[in-house]
C-alpha cells in the first residue's frame, strides 16, 4: 500500500494541476501591465489600483456580498428551524416535504431561475391592481404601484436555493442526536426554549455551520439564478463578469478574484493549521503521552471563564453583530441610495468618467447597465422586469418600440443640447417627427480583417463566404446583421420583406456554415478574438474596430463595395419611467459637445453632435499632442459617399421577423 504512494500522489497532483492551471493564469494576468488576458506586457499593479476606482465592479461586489450575507443569514436560521420542524413531522408528512425540498437542488439552475422569473413577473403584473386597491381605502402606507426585479427578488431567490443546503446539513445531526436529550434537559429543569438553546443547538451546531458555509459559497458562486432574477437595476459580480466576458474582461476582475481567492486561501490555511494541531493533540491523548498545553492558551481559557472574560466574550459577540449589521446597512445604502436614473446601454459604450461627473454635478446616482443586443434589450423590456429610464436602442428597434407604444415622448425643453445635433440625424425614418429620441452615436458596419492573415485586397463581402478562409471567419451572432449582410452581398435591400430573397440569403450563410467557413458566431467576443489574432475576418461596427486597432495594429476595416448598413443609436425614455426628469437631465448632459467629444474619444463611435464631430481632430491634437490619422477619422465618421452605399435598417413586419428568427434557429442547429 505504501509503495504506491508516489504514483497516487502524482495522479492527484495532475488533477489539481488541471483545476488550478486556469486560476494561476488568471492571477498571473492580474499583474499584467497590458489589458489583455493572453499577452504579457510586463508586471504592474495598475489593475489593483484601478479596482478601487471601478464603480461597476465595486458595486456588483457589494451587491454580491450583501445578498450572499443576508441570504445566508436568513437561510441558516430558517433552514435550521425548518429542519427541526421537518424532523419532528410524522413520516407521512415528512417524505413529501423532503422531496419538494430536494427539488431546487435536483432542478437545473436555469429552470429554477426561469420559474422564479415567471413568478415574479406574474406577481408584479397583478400587484398594480392590489396596490391601487390597498391605497384607495387607506392612506397610512402608500404602496408602490409598480414593482420590478431587483435586490428583493434576488434575495428571495438566493434564500430559496440556500435553505435546502442548510436543511441537508442540519438534518443528519438531528438524526444522530439522542432523542432523549431534550427530555433529559427538561427533566433537569430546562424550559423548552432553554433546552433548545442549551441542548439542541450545540448538538447540531456543526451542521448549521457547514450548512451556512455551503450556502454562502453557493450564493457567491451563483450566476444563473441571479441572472434571471436580479432584473436590470441590480448586478452581482457574476453578472458583471458575464457581461464583460462577452467583450473584454478588464483585468480589474482578475484583481478582485485574486484578492477573494487569497482571502479564502488564508482562511483555509489558518483553519487547516488549527485542525492539524487538534488532530495532533488527539493523537497524543490517544497514545497516553502527556499533553503539553500551551500555558498561554490555558490561561486565556481560564480567563474566559471569569466574569470579566465572560463580559469580554459578550462584547466580542456584540461587536461581531454590530460589524455584520453595519456592513449590511452600509452595503444596502451603498447600493440603493437615491435619487437615481437607470440607464441601459451597450457594453463599453461610454466614457465612465462622464457618469461620475454627472453624479457630482447633479447628485443623481446613475445606475448604468448594459444589454447584449437590441433583441436582448427587447426581451428584458417585454419581461416587465426591467426598470430602466433611459435606453439606447438602434434605429430599427426604436421604431418597433414606438410602434408598440413602449416609449415616452421627450420634453425637448429640458434638453437644450438637442440643438447641437446635426440635422442629418434628426427626423430619421425611425422617428419621423423626432418626438422620442436624441441620437447618441452613428456608424457603419464593415469587414474587420487581419492583414497578416490575408494576401489580397478585401473590398467585398465575398471573403466572408470563401472556402479559402475556412475556420477564419467570425459570423456576427445576430440574425438581422448576419442576413442583412448576405442580402447586401446578393444585391438586395437589407429591409426586404420578400421571403424568397431572405431565404436566398439564408442559403448563402448556411452553405458557408456547412463548408466550415465560420469559426463561430460572436457578438462582443469579437474583440478578444480579433485582437488576439485568432481569426482573420469579422463583421462589426466601425467604432469597435478602432478600439481593437489600439490593441492589434494588423487589423483593417472596410465598408465593402456592395454596400452595408449604417445605423444610429439614440437615447429614448421608456413609458412610465420612474425618474423622468432625471432622465432628461442625463440625456441633456450626454448630448453636450464636451460629453460627445469625450465619448467619441473613448469609444471611437462617431458623434451626432455637429460641433463635436467637426471639432474632434482638433481636440484630439490638443489632448494627445499629435495629429489624428485622417484615415481613422474617416472610418469613424464615414463620409457621405460611403453612407450613400449603405442602408439604414427599418422595423420589419412581424411575419418577416418571425422568418428571420426561424431561419436563424435553423442555422444554429
Amino acid at each position, binding site marked *: 500500500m505504501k509503495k504506491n504512494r508516489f504514483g497516487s500522489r502524482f495522479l492527484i497532483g495532475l488533477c489539481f494541476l488541471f483545476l488550478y492551471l486556469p486560476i494561476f493564469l488568471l492571477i498571473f494576468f492580474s499583474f499584467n501591465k497590458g489589458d489583455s488576458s493572453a499577452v504579457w506586457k510586463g508586471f504592474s499593479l495598475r489593475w489593483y489600483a484601478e479596482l478601487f476606482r471601478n464603480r461597476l465592479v465595486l458595486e456588483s461586489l457589494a451587491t454580491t456580498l450583501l445578498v450572499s450575507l443576508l441570504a445566508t443569514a436568513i437561510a441558516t436560521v430558517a433552514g435550521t428551524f425548518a429542519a427541526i420542524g421537518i424532523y419532528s413531522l410524522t413520516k407521512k408528512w415528512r417524505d413529501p416535504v423532503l422531496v419538494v425540498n430536494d427539488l431546487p437542488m435536483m432542478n437545473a439552475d436555469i429552470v429554477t431561475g426561469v420559474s422564479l422569473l415567471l413568478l415574479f413577473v406574474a406577481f408584479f403584473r397583478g400587484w398594480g391592481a392590489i396596490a391601487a386597491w390597498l391605497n384607495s381605502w387607506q392612506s397610512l402606507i402608500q404602496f408602490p404601484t409598480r414593482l420590478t426585479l431587483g435586490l428583493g427578488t434576488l434575495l428571495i431567490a438566493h434564500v430559496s436555493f440556500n435553505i435546502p443546503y442548510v436543511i441537508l446539513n442540519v438534518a443528519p445531526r438531528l438524526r444522530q442526536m439522542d432523542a432523549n436529550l431534550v427530555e433529559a434537559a427538561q427533566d433537569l429543569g430546562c424550559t423548552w426554549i432553554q433546552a433548545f438553546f442549551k441542548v439542541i443547538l450545540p448538538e447540531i451546531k*456543526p451542521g448549521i455551520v457547514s450548512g451556512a458555509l455551503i450556502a454562502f459559497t453557493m450564493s457567491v458562486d451563483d450566476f444563473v439564478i441571479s441572472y434571471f432574477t436580479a432584473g436590470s437595476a441590480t448586478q452581482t459580480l457574476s453578472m458583471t463578469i458575464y457581461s464583460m466576458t462577452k467583450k473584454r474582461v478588464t483585468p480589474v476582475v482578475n484583481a478582485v478574484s485574486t484578492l477573494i481567492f487569497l482571502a479564502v486561501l488564508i482562511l483555509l490555511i489558518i483553519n487547516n493549521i488549527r485542525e492539524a494541531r487538534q488532530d495532533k493533540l488527539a493523537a497524543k*491523548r*490517544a*497514545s497516553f503521552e502527556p499533553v503539553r498545553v500551551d500555558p498561554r492558551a490555558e490561561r486565556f481559557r481560564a480567563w474566559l471563564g471569569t466574569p470579566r472574560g465572560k463580559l469580554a466574550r459578550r462584547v466580542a459577540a456584540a461587536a461581531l453583530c454590530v460589524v455584520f449589521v453595519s456592513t449590511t446597512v452600509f452595503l444596502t445604502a451603498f447600493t440603493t441610495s437615491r435619487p437615481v436614473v437607470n440607464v441601459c446601454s451597450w457594453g463599453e459604450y461610454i466614457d465612465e468618467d462622464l457618469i461620475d461627473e454627472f453624479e457630482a454635478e447633479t447628485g443623481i446616482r446613475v445606475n448604468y447597465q448594459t444589454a447584449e443586443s437590441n433583441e436582448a434589450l427587447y426581451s428584458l423590456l417585454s419581461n416587465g422586469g426591467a426598470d430602466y429610464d433611459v435606453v439606447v436602442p438602434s434605429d430599427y428597434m426604436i421604431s418597433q418600440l414606438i410602434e408598440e407604444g413602449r416609449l415616452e415622448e421627450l420634453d425637448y425643453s429640458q434638453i437644450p443640447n438637442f440643438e447641437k445635433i446635426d440635422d442629418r440625424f434628426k427626423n430619421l425614418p425611425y422617428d419621423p417627427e423626432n418626438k422620442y429620441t436624441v441620437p447618441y452615436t452613428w456608424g457603419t458596419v464593415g469587414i474587420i480583417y487581419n492583414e497578416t492573415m490575408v494576401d489580397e485586397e478585401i473590398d467585398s463581402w465575398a471573403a466572408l463566404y470563401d472556402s479559402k478562409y475556412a475556420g477564419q471567419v467570425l459570423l456576427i451572432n445576430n440574425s438581422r446583421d448576419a442576413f442583412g449582410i448576405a442580402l447586401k452581398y446578393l444585391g438586395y435591400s437589407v429591409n426586404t420583406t420578400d421571403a424568397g430573397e431572405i431565404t436566398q440569403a439564408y442559403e448563402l450563410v448556411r452553405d458557408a456554415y456547412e463548408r466550415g467557413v465560420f469559426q463561430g458566431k460572436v457578438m462582443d467576443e469579437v474583440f478578444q478574438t480579433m485582437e488576439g489574432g485568432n481569426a482573420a475576418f469579422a463583421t462589426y461596427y466601425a467604432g469597435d474596430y478602432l478600439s481593437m486597432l489600439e490593441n492589434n495594429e494588423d487589423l483593417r476595416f472596410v465598408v465593402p463595395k456592395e454596400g452595408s448598413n449604417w445605423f444610429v443609436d439614440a437615447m429614448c425614455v421608456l413609458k412610465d419611467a420612474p425618474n423622468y426628469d432625471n432622465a432628461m437631465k442625463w440625456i441633456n448632459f450626454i448630448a453636450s459637445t464636451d460629453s460627445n467629444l469625450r465619448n467619441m474619444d473613448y469609444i471611437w463611435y462617431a458623434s451626432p453632435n455637429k460641433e463635436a464631430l467637426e471639432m474632434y481632430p482638433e481636440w484630439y491634437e490638443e489632448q494627445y499632442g499629435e495629429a489624428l490619422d485622417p484615415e481613422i477619422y474617416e472610418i469613424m465618421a464615414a463620409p457621405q459617399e460611403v453612407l450613400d452605399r449603405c442602408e439604414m435598417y427599418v422595423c420589419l413586419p412581424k411575419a418577416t421577423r418571425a422568418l428571420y428568427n426561424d431561419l436563424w434557429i435553423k442555422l444554429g442547429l
Partner: protein
Amino acid sequence: MSKELIRLKDVTMTFDDVTVLKDINIYFNDKEFLTLLGPSGCGKTTMLRIIGGFQTPTTGDVFFDGERINDVPPYRRQVNTVFQKYALFPHLNVYENVAFGLRIPRETTYENGKTEKVKLSRDEIDSRVREMLEVVSLKGFERRSIASLSGGQQQRVAIARALVNRPKVLLLDEPLGALDMRLRKDMQQELKRIQQQMGITFINVTHDQEEALAMSDTVVVMNEGVIQQIGTPEDIYNEPKNAFVADFIGESNIVDGIMRADRVVEIFNRRFACLDGGFEKDEPVDVVIRPEDVDIVSEAEGQLRGTVTSVTFKGVHYDTIVDFYGFKWLIQTTDYCPVGSRIGIRIDPDGFHVMKKSKYSGLYGDYSSYSEEYDEINDPTLLDVEEEGAGDEE
C-alpha cells in the same frame, strides 16, 4: 498428537515508536481452541492481525505449516477472521455475505505445477452456503438484509461467512464482545460446538477471562506486548506464573512471602506448609491464595486472625473482606460473618501457590480498594480511543 500449524518467531511490532509486541515466540497446534487473553492494549489483537495477514511484523517471521508467510497477502492465506463487530457487507444479504468468499475464483496449483484460477459452480456454492447456514442455525434467513438481524444473528453470519471457505484456522477478534451476557454464554457453547464439528483451529481474542477459561484448550495470557503464560485453563488458574496472571485470571490474594525451605513458606512472619519447591533458601516470593481456598474458623482455631471489614452477598457465597495486619484479603465462603467480627482462617497446603518475584510484584492482590468492576475500570484505553474515532463526520 496434533501437529504444529502456525509459528511466530521473534516477532516484534512497533507503531510510531510504540512497541506493541515484544519478541513473541509461540506456536499454535492444529485443531485446538486457543485464546489470546489480556487487557486492552496488550497486543493480542495485533497478534491476530499478523496471523490474518493485515499487518506485517516489524521484525521476526510468521510460519504457516512450516512455510514463511510474512509477505503472503490475506487473500492467499488459509486463515479467515471473524471481525470485531463482524464487518458484514451492508450491501449484501445474508446469503450473499456467506457466499462472498466462494464467489471469488481461487488460484489452484496442480501436481504438475500448473496454476489455474478455479471458480466454484453455482450448485456447489449453494450447497456449501446452505450447509454452513445450517451449522450456525440460520436456515431460512438467506434473504434477510444484514440490518434486520440481531447482534447474535449477525455474529452467526460472520462465523458462517468465514467458515464456509474451509480455512485451516479461524481467527476470532473479540467475537462475543458486542453481545449481552446471556447470549454470550450461549455463544460460548455454540462456538465450542462448531469448532469441534469443523475440526479446525480457532484462535480467539478476548479480555474476558471467564470466556477464555470456559472455551479454550489453551490460553495465552498477554500483557504489555509480552506473553506472560501459556497453558491449559487449569494450569493458568492453578499455577499462575506471576502476580499479573494470578490477578487477571480469577480473584487472588497476593502477599509477599519468603521461601524458608522446600514446601515451607513464610507469610506474615508465620510459616505454612505448602506444595511448592525448587526455590532457593530464604528467597523472597509472591504467594497466591485464592479466595475460595481459605476456610473461616473461630478466632482461636485460626492460623491467622483478622477483622471483617465488609461483606457482600453473591448468591452462592459471600465475598468477605478481612483485614490481616493492615493487608486486606478477599475470602469467598458460604459462612456469614458480620462486619467487625474477629475471625481466624485456615489454609491447606494446596491452597498456597508460590511464584517467583516479577515486575508485577506488589501491584496486585490487595483488596484495600475492592470494587466489583475493578478490572473494567482499570481498563480505560479502549473507551478513550473509541470516543475519538466516533467524533466528526461531514
